[in-house]
């Protein structure tokens, strides 16, 4: 029985088009989608790259945060005035307009705060560990990062170069 060892490679392309072609080529060379990632300095959609849809929890977390905010708002608007009643003239302890304001503001705060934290959770931010990256990416290059069997690396490197890769190198984690 032979043991296949995988190697991680980073192919840097000058443009989106060759990067998308490289992804197609990698698939035909047997690299599955879950072993690839595209790193870019501008947002490109999955459709542009011909990649499967990316999963994100941000909308669900946002909804959860909105719900939590609403519950806190309802607690502030209904429970706390009952716990600490302030009788002003003949005004009711709990009334409509303040309740609407308090619940609205807390719901929106919950929604936006959890959206923000959702990006941190889903992206594993902050992360200061060494990572696979090349600084040229923020200058507009597209890097295709993938893992493949060691024995295929030469063949794949040639294929990437033929598609216009400026460099194909073993991906080494480096401090950002």
């Amino acid at each position, binding site marked *: 029985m032979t043991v296949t060892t995988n190697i991680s490679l980073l192919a840097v392309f000058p443009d989106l088009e060759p990067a998308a072609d490289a992804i197609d080529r990698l698939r035909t060379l047997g690299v599955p989608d879950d072993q690839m990632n595209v790193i870019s300095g501008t947002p490109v959609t999955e459709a542009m790259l011909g990649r499967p849809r990316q999963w994100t929890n*941000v909308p669900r977390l946002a909804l959860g945060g909105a719900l939590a905010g609403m519950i806190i708002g309802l607690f502030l608007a209904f429970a706390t005035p009952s716990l600490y009643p302030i009788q002003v003239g003949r005004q009711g302890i709990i009334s409509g307009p303040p309740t609407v304001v308090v619940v*609205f*503001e807390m719901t929106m705060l919950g929604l936006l705060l959890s*959206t923000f934290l959702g990006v941190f959770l889903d992206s594993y931010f902050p992360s200061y560990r060494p990572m696979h990256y090349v*600084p040229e990416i*923020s200058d507009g290059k597209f890097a295709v990062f993938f893992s493949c069997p060691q024995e295929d690396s030469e063949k794949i490197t040639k294929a990437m170069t033929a598609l216009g890769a400026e460099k194909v190198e073993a991906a080494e984690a480096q401090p950002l």
Partner: protein
Amino acid sequence: MASTATHHDHEQDHIAHLREKHLMLDPLPRGRMNEMVMESMHDTSWKFWVVFGILSVIVAVFLFGAWGYMIANGLGVAGVNRPSYWGIFLVNTVFWIGISHAGTFISAILRVFKAEFRRPFTRAAELMTTFGLVQAGFSIFMHMGRVWLSYWLMPIPNQRGLWPNFHSPLSWDLLAITTYLLSSTMYLFLPLIPDLAMARDRTPDGTWQKTFYRVLALGFRGTEGEWTHLRHAMNIFAFAIIPVMFSVHTIVSWDCAAATRPGWNSTIFGPYFVVGALHSGMGAVAMVLAVVQSRMKHMKYFIRGEHFDALGMLMLLVSMTWAYFFFNDYMVQWYGGDKWTQQLLHFHEAGPLGWMWFAMLIFNVAIPWATLWNKKWRSNPWLLFGVGLLINFGMWFERYIIIPISLTINRMPFTWRMYTPGVEIYLGIGTVAFFILLYMGASRLIPLIPVWEVQEGQMAHSLKKYGRETVVTISELE
């Protein structure tokens, strides 16, 4: 043959003109744009530091010094007294919250409506939101007098068993302004992450700036997942922050409108205040852009006549909307015929500060209408700067008329007394200086141009021939 050649020359001239006019049609390599933005942050003349130093002194003396003096000697050194308990402190609070509305308007509403001209100056506007809200917070803390007891506003049980009364619009203010400050800061930060990563990649190792960018970039690389999460979050923010923005100034307006005072008890105050906020905010954005374009290196590439033109059109539209709300509010109050309201309206126009009422209308309506209809004029940065400055004076006057001047006239004539500001004048100047100081500081540390958003826009724009004419087309990339 000659005719074809002439047509070709015209065509080339037309294309060159389009590229010169529109940033989105004039792309540069991303590396070059990054370099330009980094240079704009680093190339600082001695004049910048002179202005920075002077502003620091003004902030130290006028803001913190005068505030310390007021804390030591009590609120009596300010001019607030019966019947004008709300003076310049609250005028400035409303004014700064108004300034803060421009950031959200430009960044969120124009993003939702996919207005492409917004791209290079969203961050410049968003920074105004955050820094404007800081000044609004300072102003309201000054108004409290015993600022060290400000935690009594928070809904936490304290040693006196006090609890904020949620029936009071002032409690709503706390919730709304806190929500808006937190939301707008997060909304500023999210699209900044990729630009901070760019700055990190371009900053030499071993410098404090490298550590600064490295920490704030959070380890962003630009993977598919990171962009997806960011894109979803920014979409949610763009939609959700708009009602928050509207709620803030509406709630601020209710501080006045919920009281049954002459001149205040108006059902139209909510939208009137929101539009007023946009009016001063847009004017302030125009002023900031004119300064940034002329004083920061390479900014003439990113900020062009087309941006001032678009901003000028928006300012004109907002000015017309403000005039409509002003007239609507005035008309109903005047026609209502209430004795005290009639007295107040007369006092606005013919009282000792009547000049302010007329200046408000001239600065907010007459001057914008007289100048901004002309495309050539409104594309001129310094003309727009001037109009923006006058609008801000006009809007400050409007708040002064609504708050201390309107408080002078009430239903008890024996209490009528003119408001004479004291230390709050210096504190107000201090907040203006602090706002500019924060902005200048940020312009040295934070990429003012969202380079990735500009590049994204440039990728989406192209030229296409329809018959004989070359026109601009935009693809839906997001």
